[in-house]
């Protein structure tokens, strides 16, 4: 595992239309900003959803806050630097700061988890059947992610959902050493693997 799944696609590169959009938005063109929202909104929301441990109501507030902040920050974008990493860094950093400011731990009940994951928690060594496991493998992984510590969730979301590279995550986290980021990613993956029931190991996409 090295860069994020999208890190090599466009997390570090801008195409010309995007750059033109960014320049117009930075100059105050609201229509250009709307196009940027359309292009990056899904990715930012997916990352925010994982950062909030799947709380969709909170996620939407967070995404709106991030994009409003981005709009006010656009005039500070240095056009000599790539726009996409800057946008992701600003948006993710805003999400993280808002969450930290709230100082709230996600309160997820076991019932809610079971409902979301659509599986019965194991009790007394009882296991869900293989068919259910296959169907719900992705849900179980998602629920396991939501139980991770906030730092791990944030780094996973930045890396996988937002597609940020280690260097971009480091910049977004105030210069956290890249080695620390890699170690946290490794620990988060190992923690997820440890949480997966054995029979789900072969069923995830």
């Amino acid at each position, binding site marked *: 595992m090295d860069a994020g799944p999208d890190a090599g696609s466009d997390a570090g590169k801008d195409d010309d239309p995007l750059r033109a959009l960014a320049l117009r938005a930075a100059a105050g063109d609201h229509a250009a900003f709307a196009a940027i929202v359309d292009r990056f909104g899904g990715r930012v929301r997916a990352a925010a959803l994982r950062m909030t441990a799947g709380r969709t109501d909170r996620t939407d507030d967070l995404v709106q806050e991030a994009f*409003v902040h981005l709009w*006010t920050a656009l005039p500070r974008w240095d056009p000599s630097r790539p726009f996409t990493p800057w946008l992701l860094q600003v948006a993710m950093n805003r999400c993280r700061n808002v969450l930290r400011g709230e100082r709230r731990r996600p309160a997820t009940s076991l019932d809610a988890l079971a409902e979301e994951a659509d599986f019965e928690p194991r009790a007394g060594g009882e296991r869900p059947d293989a068919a259910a496991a296959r169907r719900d493998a992705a849900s179980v992984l998602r629920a396991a992610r939501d139980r991770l510590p906030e730092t791990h969730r944030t780094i996973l979301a930045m890396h*996988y959902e937002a597609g940020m590279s280690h260097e971009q995550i480091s910049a977004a986290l105030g210069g956290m050493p890249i080695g620390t980021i890699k170690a946290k990613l490794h620990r988060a993956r190992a923690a997820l693997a*440890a949480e997966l029931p054995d029979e789900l*190991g072969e069923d995830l996409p």
Partner: protein
Amino acid sequence: MNCADFRKRLLDGRTDADHAAACAPCRRFAAKLAAVDAGLAASSRDSAPLPPALRAGILAATSRESAAPRPAAPARGRVLDGRAAFAFRGAVAAAVAAAAWLALPEDLALALPAPAPELRERFVSAAPQASIEVPWPLTRAAVDGVAIRGVPALSAGPVTVPGDLPEAALGVCAAAALAAAAAGAALARRSRRTPRTEARP
């Protein structure tokens, strides 16, 4: 090699195929780790478009923002925040504190247990900004808690520095400030050993 070692090596990307083949728990763990990677990669492809209501909310909020005057971008300079701003403020505070202490006659600096009006005047006159205020005592070169008002770089919030100021310059500034503070502290210690306020026979 035990399983813990194997897991560690696995996480480093150096798997031990022989051990994995022989050890069922490790084999399962490796499979689950691979499944986790696949699942995470798949989740990254799941980003759906923004819900229309959320998109409309964002655009409405930013439209209101655009109706008001947008915060002007600094013509030159970049904004330091977070740790960088803290470090910069600390470095400048240390430099000012050390310089202020060194500028004082040692007898004045060491003889007075509390700030006297004339001493404060001396600070003010020696400082580049008239509103600098440095709490006593500086004889310990205590830069922690030094509160200086009226200096933009030392006020709360982000710090704007010249855009062409390289990161190395900040480091040099911090190092120079620390050196100055250390020199001030050393002078203070030496002066305490030989108080100069008493007339020597």
